[in-house]
């Protein structure tokens, strides 16, 4: 039990990293009304774009992160326009399944270009700080701060900017939004841009602590989806809470069960949450 505070901190750090792509996934779900599983490949694309910026161009973390954001956002928009948009009228599941096919295509495009080798960012690594018997990594802390900053920006933008409000309006009632002069196609594109951008940035943040390969994004898709569902699909604060539940839940699971069942415990958490709140913690409130 002396591990408890440490595990909590580990969980919060993991959860906050998970929250970024989960927000992107949720925003796209809220506005376009389908689970876009191609977040897996976009996280990978973001991670590789960040890698290219960092290792090839020698950029530090934050500019590399912006590069990751932009690249994933652009790829997201283009691939959505070509592959998914024409299928959306045929229902959420058709679009969702097409997005899995899209993931296979994009992941292998990354593989085609970069091969399967593991790659690491060119960033100095520091030992963890120890305080009061718990340890926190400076890098993890930096990632946590970046994640919190991104989240704050997202919330402020949604709450106070004209475009943010337009996004929420489309998420809430797309037909009515159109009647108020909001172009839902434009808002859809914008959401894909920012959503996939966040996913890409999240992919890079997650990759910073590990190494990246074409499967990087695929490893996150289950926790991302789980976080979005636990929080309440379509609710952005919910996705952050969901990410925390999954992050902390997985880390704490080590106290009770063999570490080999880590993700299973995450799923037990989901089942328990859903038994008591069948529509997720915050319910399906949009934003």
């Amino acid at each position, binding site marked *: 039990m002396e591990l408890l505070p440490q595990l909590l901190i580990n969980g919060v750090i993991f959860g906050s990293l998970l929250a970024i792509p989960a927000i992107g996934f949720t925003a796209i779900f809220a506005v376009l009304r389908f689970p876009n599983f191609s977040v897996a490949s976009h996280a990978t694309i973001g991670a590789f774009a960040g890698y290219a910026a960092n290792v090839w161009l020698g950029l530090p973390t934050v500019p590399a992160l912006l590069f990751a954001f932009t690249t994933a956002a652009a790829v997201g928009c283009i691939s959505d326009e070509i592959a998914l948009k024409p299928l959306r009228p045929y229902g959420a599941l058709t679009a969702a399944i097409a997005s899995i096919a899209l993931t296979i295509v994009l992941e292998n495009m990354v593989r085609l270009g970069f091969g399967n080798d593991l790659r690491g960012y060119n960033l100095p690594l520091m030992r963890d700080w120890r305080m009061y018997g718990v340890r926190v990594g400076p890098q993890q802390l930096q990632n946590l701060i970046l994640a919190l900053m991104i989240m704050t920006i997202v919330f402020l933008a949604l709450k106070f900017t004209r475009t943010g*409000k337009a996004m929420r*309006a489309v998420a*809430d009632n797309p037909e009515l939004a159109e*009647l*108020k002069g909001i172009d839902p196609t434009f808002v859809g594109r914008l959401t894909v841009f920012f959503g996939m951008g966040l996913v890409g940035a999240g992919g890079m943040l997650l990759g910073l602590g590990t190494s990246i390969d074409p499967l990087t994004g695929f490893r996150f898709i289950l926790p991302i989806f789980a976080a979005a569902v636990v929080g309440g699909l379509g609710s952005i604060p919910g996705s952050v809470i969901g990410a925390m539940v999954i992050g902390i839940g997985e880390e704490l699971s080590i106290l009770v069960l063999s570490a080999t069942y880590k993700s299973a415990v995450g799923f037990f958490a989901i089942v328990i949450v859903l038994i008591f709140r069948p529509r997720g913690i915050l319910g399906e409130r*949009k934003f």
Partner: protein
Amino acid sequence: MIFSAEEITGGYSRADQILKGVTISADLGETVAILGPNGAGKSTFLKAVMGLLPRVEGTIYFDGRRIDGLRPKQVVEHGIGFVPQENNVFPSLSIHENLEIGGYLTSDTQRRIEEIFDCFPLLAKRRAEAARALSGGQRQILAMAITMVHASRMLLLDEPSAGLAPKAAGELFETIRQIAGCSIAVILVEQNALAALKTCDRAYILSAGSNHITGTGTELANDPNIRETFLGGRKY
């Protein structure tokens, strides 16, 4: 006449032409009712005006300019607003935010919102609450208020009284009369024919996608033949 639609035909798909030649006009400060049996194309006509139908033929003039073939956004920019029958508010946005979205394309949104809050103290009082907290009648009022933020010249209402209790419906028609008083053209589609005829200046009765009878509200309300055929031969 600031608004005139001539011989409108169209529908949701090529095979399904609901409108087969509808002609309707309206002027500022006037309330016009569109009545008729189910499937006559009343609501479809409103959607045609708003640019929500894929194919529309015929001409629509507003303030001397053609607005047929425009996208909804461009129609809204002419100061025209549409209140759908259902799902006409943004439930998870606050009332204030609902009105802000109403003024998405309007320049002096904040001023107009304050004016509307003056008109509807109920909304002003609950401006921070989410719209889903409102009751059915209040929601209809909000829906009209949202539209009024940008619809400075013409308001299209699709069955505003549907599902409302007589008292709430009465209040609603009162509001509509007030709105028309501020030199806005109001076109409303109604099932509640008698109440609509009492409220409106002129009325059109559509049948099977084209004009059937036109006249003033009182004329039509008092014509026994019309009562018999179109209003179900009923009296209050």
